[in-house]
Structure formats: C-alpha cells, structure tokens
C-alpha cells in the first residue's frame, strides 16, 4: 500500500505542486490548507508522514506537532519553510521534527527526508 503523505501549507501553489511531486514518486498525497483541516481528517486514515509549512495563519508546524502529541499521535513530520532562519530551524528540530527543509525543495532531498522519517526507528535520536 503506497505511503500516505499529508501536505499542510496555506499556499495553494505549493500544495498542488508537492502533491504532484509525491504522486510522481509513487506516494499517496493528501493536501490540507491548515492544521485544523489536518486534525479534522485524523479520524480517517492517519498519514504515514507529514509535510508541514513552518508558518501558517492559525497554527504553524511546531504548534501542530504539539497538538498531535497531546492527542497521542506520533507521526514523523518534515517542516518546510520559505524563511532560512537558524532560530526557527533549532526550534523545529527541538520540537521533534524529522527534517527542516528550506523552499524551494529538491525532489531527491524531499524523498530522502520522507524515507528517513518513515524508516526512523522509534526512540532513535534524530540528527
């Protein structure tokens, strides 16, 4: 069964393009315009990996991970951002993100990050 990847970004162009990229690489993408929409969809099939935009109008990636953790949901998350900021990177990794990628994102880099995130052994420390 193809891996289900949830893409959460308030920018439609980014959502559509990443959905196409993931589909082209054999993944099953689902896109959400906000963390709220993602949380509402968790009742159905849970995604295997999350791709979260760092800064969105209501909840950003870091806040989204906190919300999921409160619900007892542990899904590896890759945080993407248009702001190459060391402070944001540090906070993202501290929050438990599997990877922190700056836009624009190369396909190989993204697929490698998804692969690493999904195959990470639970409890194994992240880089």
């Amino acid at each position, binding site marked *: 069964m193809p891996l289900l990847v949830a893409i959460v970004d308030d920018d439609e162009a980014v959502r559509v*393009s990443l959905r196409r*990229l993931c589909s082209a690489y054999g993944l099953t993408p689902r896109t959400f315009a906000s963390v709220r929409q993602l949380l509402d969809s968790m009742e159905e099939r849970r995604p295997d990996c999350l791709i979260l935009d760092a800064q969105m109008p209501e909840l950003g990636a870091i806040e989204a991970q906190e919300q999921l953790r409160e619900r007892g949901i542990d899904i590896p998350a890759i945080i993407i951002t248009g702001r190459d900021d060391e402070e944001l990177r540090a906070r993202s990794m501290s929050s438990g993100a599997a990877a922190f990628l700056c836009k624009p994102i190369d396909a190989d880099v993204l697929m490698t990050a998804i692969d690493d995130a999904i195959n990470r052994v639970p409890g194994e420390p992240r880089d």
Partner: protein
Amino acid sequence: MRALQLATAVPYVNSPSAPQRIARVGSQFVLIAVAYYLGARLGLGLRFQDSQMGVVWPPNGVLLAALLLTPRSRWWTVLLAGAVAHVAAMYPVTPAWRWVWQIAANSAMTVAAAEALRRFVGMPLRFDSVRQVLVYTATAFVATGLCALMLPAFVRSLFGLEPGYSPRVSLPAVMLANTTGMLLVTPVIVLWAQRGVRGLKELAARHLLEGTAILLSLLAVGALAFGSGPGVAQFPPLLIWIFPPLLWAAVRLGPVGSATALFFVAALSALGMARHVGPFIMPTEAEQVLSLQLFWIALSLPILLLAAVIRERERAEDTLHDLRHQLAHATRVATAGELSGAFAHELRQPLTAILANAQAGIRLLTHQPAKHHEVREILEDIARHDRQAAEVIARLRSFVLEGKSSFDTVEVETLVRDALTLSRSTVELSQVEVQAQICAGLPPVRGDPVQLLQVVLNLIVNACESMLAVPAAERRLRLGAAPLGEEQVEVVIADCGVGLPAGHEDRVFEPFYTTKAKGLGLGLAVGRSIAAAHGGRLWAENNPQRGATFHLALGAHNGNGKHAAAGRHRRRR
C-alpha cells in the same frame, strides 16, 4: 609610434572645417559691427545739438555683451568689428584723432569690464543671483567711471578745449551714458543670445502671452507717461504705473523678461525725450540728460535684483525638492532592505511550486504510458508561477527605483491595498491580523504614488514590528480610510503594540529617532516630510488601551482639476 599612428589615424569628430570657422567668425564680425553701428547712430541721435553729451551710449553695451559671449581668443574680432563700426558711424563728422582716441578708450573699458566679470562673477552671466547683479552693476560703474576719465570729452574739457560744457558736467554725463548702456543693453543681448533661437521656439505659449501683455502694458503707460506734454507727463503718479508691468516681468519672466521690459521702457522714454515730450524735459540739457539717466538706473537695478532674488529662491526650492526626493528614495531602499526577508519568502513560494512541478513533470514523462495531459497542466502552472515571481520582483523594483517624482491622481483605496500587498509577507510573518475599513466613494488625492505608498507601507511595517512583543493572538492592525472634513482624506493605521513614548508622541517623527536595533530612524521623519510636501499632515497618538494610531491626512482632489491644499512643485525653466 603605434599610439602616435592611432592619434593621427582617427580625426577628431565634429570639429568645424577651416571654411566653416571662417564663415562663423565672419558672420559674428558682421553682426557685431552692424549692432555697434546702429547703437552708435542711436547714441548720436540722442545727443543734443552741437554737444558731445548724449543720454546713452549703446555701442559699449553691445561691445561688452559681445566680449562676454565670445571666447577670449576671439576678442580681437569683436574689438576690430567695433572699431570698424565706430569709424563708419563717426566719419566724417568726427575727426580721425577723436575716433581713434574713443576706440582705444572704449576698447580698454569693455575689455577690463569683461575680464573683471569673468573673474569675479564667472560665466555664463545670467543675472539670476543677487551677487551677479550687484557685481555686474559695480563693474559697470567702475569701468565706465574710469573710461570717462580717459575719453576725449572729459580730458579735453579739463583744458577748456571742449566748448559748451565743463568737466564737472561732462564727467558724470559721459560716465552715466556708458553705465546706462551697460545696464540696459548688455543684459538683454547676453540673456537672449544665451537663450538662442531654439530657446525662443521652446518658450511656453503662456510665457509668450505674458511677455506680450507686459510689453503692451508698458507701451500704453509709456505712451502716456513719456509721450505727453508737460502738463500731463509731469503728473508724478503717472510714472508709478510703469512699475506694475516691470514687477510682473521680474516675478513671472525672470531676468530675461526684466531686462527686455527695462530696455523697452528705456526706448520709450528716450523716444519721448527725443521728441521733446514727457516728464524729462528740463530747463537745461544737462538736467534732462541726468534726470533720464538716473531714472533708468533707479529703475533697472531694483527690477534686476528682484528677478535675481526670485530666481535664487526658485533654485533653492528646486534643490530642496531634489534633496527631499533623494532622501525619500534612500529611505525606500532602506525599507526594502528591511523587507528583504519578507520579499525572499514571497519569492520562494512560486519558486517552490516551479521546482516541484518541474521535477514532477520530468518523473511523469518516464511513466508508461507518459501522462502528457498532466505534464501539460504542470507546464502551464510553471509558466503562471514564473509570472507571479516576476510580479513580486517588479513590485519591489518599482518601489525601490528612484524614478522621477511626478504628481498624479491617486486612489486612496488602491494606495492602501498596494501597501498591504507589499507588506503581506511581513504581516504574515509577524502573525498580525489585518482589518481594513475603507469608505466607499473616497475622493482621490493628488500626489506622487510611490512616495505616498512609501509612507503607508512604512507605517504598516512599523505597526507590525511594534506588536512583536505582544502575544500573537492579540496582534491586530486596523487600516482605515475615510473623508476628513470636506477637503481631505485620512488614512488611519492603528496597532496594538508597545505604543509611543508617553507625553512625547511627536518625538518619533524626529530624524534618527528609532527604537529598532537596526533602523535608520528616518522613516517617519521622511514620511512627515512627504506628507507636508503633499499639503497634508502625518501625526500620531497613543490608543486609550494599548498601541498607537497614526493619521495621514491628504488633500482631496476634486473633479474640476483643483486640489485642496495639495503641495505642488513645478521645475522652473
């Protein structure tokens, strides 16, 4: 050797040929000689019968003007032309020894005056500063005074060889005849020669109209004041009516208009005296000559000075406008620098979409069967996102580029929306909620769209930065635009930030006042300056609860072309 060969191989472009140079010098020679001759005939015509004393000696004014307009290396042609014309005008009435003496004295005087003006005033002589007018007048008096001491009329009268008048009478008369020639003739020739024929064609129609109206007014008043019999002409208030058109010329048409109007008045008054009418008919010839000369001098100096003062003020305003424009540009660049992170973020979105789409498309082409339809959609999206990225760059570029300041009709709603577009990334990154309330049917304002955008954008960016210390959920920015009274439109930017220093709210508009770690502290100072230049106002106050509100009031531009209290600046020509 190679450099020498190159130097000789390439001829200097645009240098006139020898025949062209000869033709040019020849035509200048003829022009100067003709003008000198006509001036001499006029001067002799305004001389009293059996007297060497004339009201004005225009030829020296012509000679000085020619020297000022000619390179020093060709002064010999000017002096030669003057000498030839002088002989032609004086022969055979005046004996040869006299006109040789006169030529020598006049040449020495005009050369000395031209040299002094080049040294102390500098070329070109435009009579557009107080210093130029005063130095020119002083030079004219000194040069003509010294020349009068050398001329045969005075020197011979010292030895009683000039029948009819004494040195006490001849010296001031001769001196002032030359002085008036320099004050009335030289400026008009120099200024119009510098303007040239092309300048005349480029003259705005309204200037031509005003000039014609001024000359017609002078003609009407002059005919009455200078052309009436003693009973009417010596009515003192008549001469006062000369002043309104002269003042009009000085204020509206500058040094050229003033010099031309003065020359016209001098011609009318001289004509009147030649016909023995007007207010300058006195019991003795000396009194007539002196009264007219003093009238001309008393008239020309204040009028030329007024035109120069007004020109100086206009130049200062032009310089201030240019400096304000450059400062606004510099602060725009600084603002763009502060927004660079936000612009980079805004650019990265379409670039992310382009890269992801392109790589997805490449991958799809390897699928069997190839999904051409999807690839086509992808390529169309790539093109669209590329244009989107170009728009972001174009917006930034049009904001940052200096450009020429131009006043246009500006819709306030468009202004606010453009500012929000430019600051969108900053607003999003600051997690600020924006509430825009723009009244419908707002009258437009008249102003420089880029500068007004700069002011509003700076206020929005400042508001976002002032709210960074506030919890994200409480960051609200209210933008409003509404009429203010009947003649103004007000843009309001209210935040929930840290507010302004209590009791010193106006301090934020002082240059170099800033609370940011990295800031020039000029944004608000420049913003207030821009508002003032638009006839508006920028002020701020603390909100009752939290934060501050900035108000930008601008004059509304109603439909019939009038704008209430809008600043306007037209570059003078």
